[in-house]
């Protein structure tokens, strides 16, 4: 019995520590936006909604959230669709050196997402007439996200039994029908995972949208967040904390929605 009790106490301690560790930094986001004089200290706020009001006076805040949504949704859709197709093909066709190839792509993606690649990306976008377009941002970001998405999705596809597909084949379904009717629904948790991951990545990226976009009416939240500093580079904490909260909400809402709807996990498809 004591063994059992000890194990329970140990487990409870573990979860308490983990929960503390992961929630502590979040406190600031919960208090500062409602504080009339926010500082970097987390404290019981001198409660106000004034920060929201002054934030909404900023002409770019709401449009930037819309732009973020647009770019994130676009990239996520593109990444999910293309990665699903590619992962399916790679998972079902045996090509020698397939895994190595995928890993090389993954490595190259790390170069492309780095600072040093901005000149090539910028010039590429210029030549393709994609400067100052949402599409340019979406394509550039998607290119960097695809390899990891394929890498992860392929594991999902490998995990789905082939008998479903074969069964559909016997009934005469075409490869595209199989993908649409069978494979996609089966790996939906995987697709949801990738989509959330892609959205979170796009949501936070600053450099690419910044150099590719001209018009602040097209800029996403990450870029607009940077404008909330003074001439001398000091952060305006009232606006920044409030904006951070607003800016985080869509991602959180999306996560909650997706995890409710599709389950949010890796591998395995749907349990039978």
């Amino acid at each position, binding site marked *: 019995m004591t063994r059992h009790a000890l194990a329970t106490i140990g487990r409870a301690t573990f979860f308490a520590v983990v929960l503390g560790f992961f929630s502590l930094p979040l406190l600031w986001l919960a208090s500062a936006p409602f504080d009339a004089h926010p500082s970097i*200290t987390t404290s019981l706020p001198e409660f106000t909604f004034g920060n929201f009001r002054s934030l909404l006076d900023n002409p770019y805040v709401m449009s930037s959230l819309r732009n973020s949504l647009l770019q994130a949704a676009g990239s996520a859709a593109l990444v999910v669709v293309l990665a699903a197709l590619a992962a399916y093909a790679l998972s079902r066709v045996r090509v020698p050196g397939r895994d190595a190839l995928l890993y090389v792509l993954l490595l190259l993606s790390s170069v492309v997402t780095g600072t040093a690649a901005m000149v090539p990306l910028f010039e590429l976008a210029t030549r393709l007439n994609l400067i100052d377009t949402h599409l340019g941002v979406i394509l550039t970001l998607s290119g960097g996200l695809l390899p990891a998405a394929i890498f992860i999705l392929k594991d999902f596809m490998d995990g789905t039994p082939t008998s479903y597909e074969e069964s559909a084949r016997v009934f005469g379904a075409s490869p595209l029908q199989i993908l649409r009717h069978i494979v996609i629904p089966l790996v939906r948790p995987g697709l949801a995972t990738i989509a959330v991951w892609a959205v979170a990545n796009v949501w936070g990226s600053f450099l690419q949208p910044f150099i590719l976009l001209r018009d602040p009416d097209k800029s996403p939240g990450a870029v607009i967040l940077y404008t909330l500093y003074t001439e001398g580079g000091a952060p305006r904490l009232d606006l920044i904390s409030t904006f951070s909260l607003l800016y985080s909400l869509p991602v*959180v809402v999306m996560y909650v929605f997706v995890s409710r709807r599709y389950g949010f996990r890796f591998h395995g498809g749907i349990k039978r």
Partner: protein
Amino acid sequence: MLPGLVLIGIFLIFPALWTIYLGLTDYRLTGLAAANPQVVGLDNYTTALGDDRFRNSLWLTVQYVLGSAVVGQAALGFAIAWMLRNRPGPVKRVTEGLVLLAWILPSSVVAFLWIALLDRDEGTLNALLHTPGFAWLLDYPMSSIIVFNIWRGTAFSMMLYGAALENVPPSHLETARLAGASTFQQLRDVVFPRIKGHVLTNLLLISLWTFNDFTSFQLTAGGPEGRSEILPVYIYNVALSGGQLGFGAAISFLVLLINLVFAFIYLRLLRGRRKVVVP
């Protein structure tokens, strides 16, 4: 498939190769070298390898990757996944939700959260620990960003291992328990051999991401005195602030090569039995 290939070709392979080519030049964003870049061959590489700041940065990066990704995220992620396995109910949902929240919040927001937590004078942590004036970010910059990155990235490992653990047949664990095996023995004898493949995938991905993770810049900006200047920050400082794009590109490529080395080490350690082990 085809549009995927085209997109990857145009927006991934092409700029990546171009960047690698830039690494062979003395290209700069401004100044004379911008007007007329010269191919300098491997000069950038020899310069980098001979530079203390680079070597320091490389060493810090290795610490960062090993500490925050390989040990931190992978171990904590595994521990959480292990403790949450077969555990229904609110504990699981809340824990997973918080861990995932740390992962999906935008990086610029997250940086503020941590500055607020670790600040020397008014930080939440000092208030909690009654250690006013303790300068976490100055006295322990590497430890701080390592802990930060653990906080930030554990979710991925947690999810991956969570899924992997579902693939460990309960009967195997129970056989070990019936034989009287301790938790550690169960992990060593049953779980780990079974999830080797996932461990490999996980290590490959999180190492790569951590090698390129730039978020810590907003916490310490590489300081103080370069004591937390990991390679992505170094590249940023060199390529963007210093304008030396050619040099920065060369270092990006070096990072790629180092990743390759890490991949080989992992494969070596896990004895490359991925195909056999992944069920």
